[in-house]
């Protein structure tokens, strides 16, 4: 028997165990590669879509999210691979002892098993990479997702292959080395088989029933493999929690940011040319639009007269009138110094960046809402203070809250950063009186009015239209809800695409769990056969596996859920919005996921229970 023919023949004869290990490895490598390809395409997709849309702050939330999920996917795959090979080689400890007991030299036995490990790992990783690309190709053909228009990053293939191959070798070699150190008698002993610990360490559970007893013992007496599967599933649940909870929380949070900028029951009134321009500025959040040349915000014909404002204020259906002056200006960054609170040393902040931005003059007292991410919004008594949109803050300032900006030789201290879909966050809010002072223009060019919630909206709008047409025929009403609706649909679609990741992660995790249960059932095959031969019904076997599966799932869920929620709330989304409905949504998704995984994990046990008893025993 040659040194290479033995491992090959041995693997071929142990078809079930070899194919289980190879299939598990293939699942692990393929799902990791596919998920990485998918998330890179989605990241690229969102980046491409967002080049002229989305504010920079929102884009950062998306990018951070995809990066974090990508890292989790890779770690999950790595843990799974190491677990599978560890399990496979630990199961071979008895064979190792058998061959040593027959007189085979240690080095030769080590060579046999290393060759087996190499063959299985190489085959699993190669097929896994091919299957990963195959699934990616199939999904692109079947689904027609828009993200599939972006090219796949093929460099993931060698990275995943190399990383998983090395991991598999490292983790597979460890049990071989452990077995090599064992004397043949210990390797053959069932108390050393598969990490089984000595029985005296466990007292009988006198009160518990048979099913629970066998299930618990099987788990506790294989601490290494149990801990590894719990660790693996915990990684899966962190990934699921981050993907599901993160997507829902991030969606709710970003939606609330965008909703706050419009306010409830608010409509805008402007000259029809200004109205068209305002709609372009708003729609830049969800579609790239050309402004069609420089718009003249200071043109007298688009100004709204004081008479119109007074007429609106006189209407009983209107509870608040918020007149604004919008214009485009060249803005300069003003650098500053800040003090390190620990060393009290001063250091410079900022540079001399400049760029165009929308400047919106508002009366803080009349604002229909308040929206900010950092610092505060404008308040009564503010004069040379300003609030910058997140795109301006990220592009032009290092530490906006300790810096100032200059518009037409006047400085405004930045007191807050807001997220505003107008002009994709390239916006600066300042007090209207100061803007009027530096531009010399007194009339506002847009008015926001808040309708009373107790009156009929259609009737109120009709009344407003009649009143404004009396002062200026070309004034029109902009229904902000419609444009806001489009922005929210865009955000919803972006997050919905991201929600595909937990779906794929869930499928991959379920495969991992099924692979584990298949290996566990295979390992307990003889014992289950004895139970059935003595008179246990097939459902008893399913019950034992169900108890094991639920213990493993519950432990890993508790671990994964805690870390997942912490990661989501503390790292991924700043100022998260978490309502009781959000929690209900997350709980529902996770419950569906866990229940689905639980029932699918029973499939190998159900199949086993249906197998003819004699076939199992022999």
């Amino acid at each position: 028997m040659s040194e290479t023919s033995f491992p090959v023949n041995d693997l071929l004869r142990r078809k079930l165990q070899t194919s289980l290990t190879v299939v598990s490895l293939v699942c692990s490598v393929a799902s990791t590669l596919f998920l990485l390809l998918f998330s890179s395409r989605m990241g690229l997709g969102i980046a491409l879509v967002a080049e002229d849309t989305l504010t920079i702050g929102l884009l950062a939330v998306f990018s951070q999210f995809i990066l974090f999920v990508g890292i989790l996917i890779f770690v999950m795959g790595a843990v799974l691979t190491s677990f599978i090979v560890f399990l496979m080689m630990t199961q071979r400890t008895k064979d190792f002892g058998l061959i040593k007991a027959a007189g085979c030299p240690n080095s030769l036995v080590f060579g046999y098993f290393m060759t087996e490990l190499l063959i299985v790992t190489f085959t699993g990783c190669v097929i896994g990479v091919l299957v990963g690309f195959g699934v990616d190709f199939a999904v692109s053909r079947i689904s027609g997702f828009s993200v599939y228009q972006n090219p796949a990053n093929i460099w993931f293939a060698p990275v995943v292959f190399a990383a998983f191959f090395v991991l598999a070798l490292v983790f597979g070699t460890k049990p071989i080395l452990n077995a090599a150190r064992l004397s043949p008698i210990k390797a053959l002993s069932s108390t050393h088989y598969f990490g089984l610990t000595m029985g005296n360490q466990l007292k009988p559970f006198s009160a518990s029933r048979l099913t629970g007893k066998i299930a618990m013992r099987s788990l506790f007496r294989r601490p290494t493999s149990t801990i590894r599967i719990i660790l693996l599933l915990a990684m899966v649940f962190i990934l699921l929690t981050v993907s599901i909870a993160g997507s829902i929380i991030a969606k709710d949070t970003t939606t609330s940011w965008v909703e706050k900028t419009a306010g409830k029951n608010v409509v805008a009134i402007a000259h029809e040319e200004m109205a068209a321009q305002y709609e372009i500025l708003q729609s830049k959040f969800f579609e790239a639009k050309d402004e069609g040349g420089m718009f003249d915000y200071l043109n007298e014909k688009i100004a709204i007269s004081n008479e119109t404002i007074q007429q609106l204020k006189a209407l009983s259906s209107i509870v608040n009138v918020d007149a604004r002056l919008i214009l485009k200006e060249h803005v300069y960054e003003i650098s500053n110094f800040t003090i390190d609170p620990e060393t009290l040393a001063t250091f410079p902040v900022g540079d001399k960046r400049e760029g165009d931005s929308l400047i919106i003059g508002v009366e803080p007292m009349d604002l229909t809402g308040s929206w900010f991410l950092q610092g505060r919004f404008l308040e009564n008594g503010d004069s040379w203070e300003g609030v910058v949109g997140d795109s301006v803050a990220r592009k032009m300032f290092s530490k906006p809250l300790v810096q100032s900006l200059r518009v037409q030789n006047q400085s405004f201290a930045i007191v807050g950063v807001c997220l505003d879909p107008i002009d994709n966050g390239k916006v600066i809010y300042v007090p209207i009186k100061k803007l009027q002072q530096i531009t010399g223009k007194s009339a506002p060019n847009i008015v926001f009015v808040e309708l009373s919630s107790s009156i009929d909206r259609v009737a109120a709008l009709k009344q407003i239209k009649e009143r404004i047409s009396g002062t200026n025929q070309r004034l029109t009403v902009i229904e902000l809800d419609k444009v806001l609706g489009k922005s929210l649909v865009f955000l919803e679609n972006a997050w919905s695409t991201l929600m595909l990741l937990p779906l794929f992660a869930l499928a991959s995790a379920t495969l991992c769990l099924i692979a584990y249960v298949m290996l566990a059932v295979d390992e307990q095959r003889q014992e289950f056969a004895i139970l059935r031969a003595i008179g246990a019904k097939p459902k008893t076997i399913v019950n034992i596996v169900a108890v094991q599966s639920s213990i493993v799932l519950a432990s890993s869920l508790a671990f994964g859920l805690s870390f997942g929620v912490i990661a989501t709330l503390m790292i991924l989304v700043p100022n998260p919005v978490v309502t009781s409905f959000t929690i209900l949504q997350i709980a529902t998704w996770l419950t569906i996921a866990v229940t689905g995984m639980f029932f699918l994990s029973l499939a190998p046990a159900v199949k086993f229970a249906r197998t003819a008893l004699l076939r199992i025993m022999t």
Partner: protein
Amino acid sequence: MAVFIAKLCKIYEIAEAKVEVLKDVNLNVASGEFVAICGASGSGKTTLLNLISGIDKPTSGQITVFGEDLIDKDEDFLADVRCHKVGFVFQSYNLVSTLTVAENVAFPMEWTRKPVKQIEVRVSELLETLGVQHRANHFPAQLSGGEQQRVAFARALANDPPLLLADEPTGNLDAHNSQKIIDVFRMLKANRKTIIVSTHDKQLLELADQTLCLENGSFELQ
């Protein structure tokens, strides 16, 4: 009639070959009777016991155990028969390695939903009778072959089944341990337990009321 077998056939299909292990076997075992089955290796002894216990299904023929017809019955029904009416002692003991000796004996009783106290009393009684009470909290891997075989007997008798099947119970044991097992059979025979045992052991064959020899899949009366 404890066991009634008529025209029993069992054919195994291995690859494309057909191996006829049992051919038109007929057997009647009365209640309380001790039947010994002998025969060379591969003569079909284990297959016959597997068929009587419902572990395996015949190709054709009839098997009735205490009035229960075993042909074409589902796994749940057969499991009930094995649990309540048949005790099986396997040649290779087949103890559950994750359960202690006491638990191995107790678990067939747990399926019958007997009270815990009653189970404890029965386990203690059986282990004492079979001389392994000092091993009650040990795991099977920590026992000798003889001790494992006696635990297997205790487990088979746990639910006090009217029929005991034993597949070469002394085949793996030394003379000393074999004698202990034969003493158990003697005690069971005295208690009028119906027993079918496959064996080559001279003492067991002498103990039997009826000895049958399987040869090429058919009985030859001794």
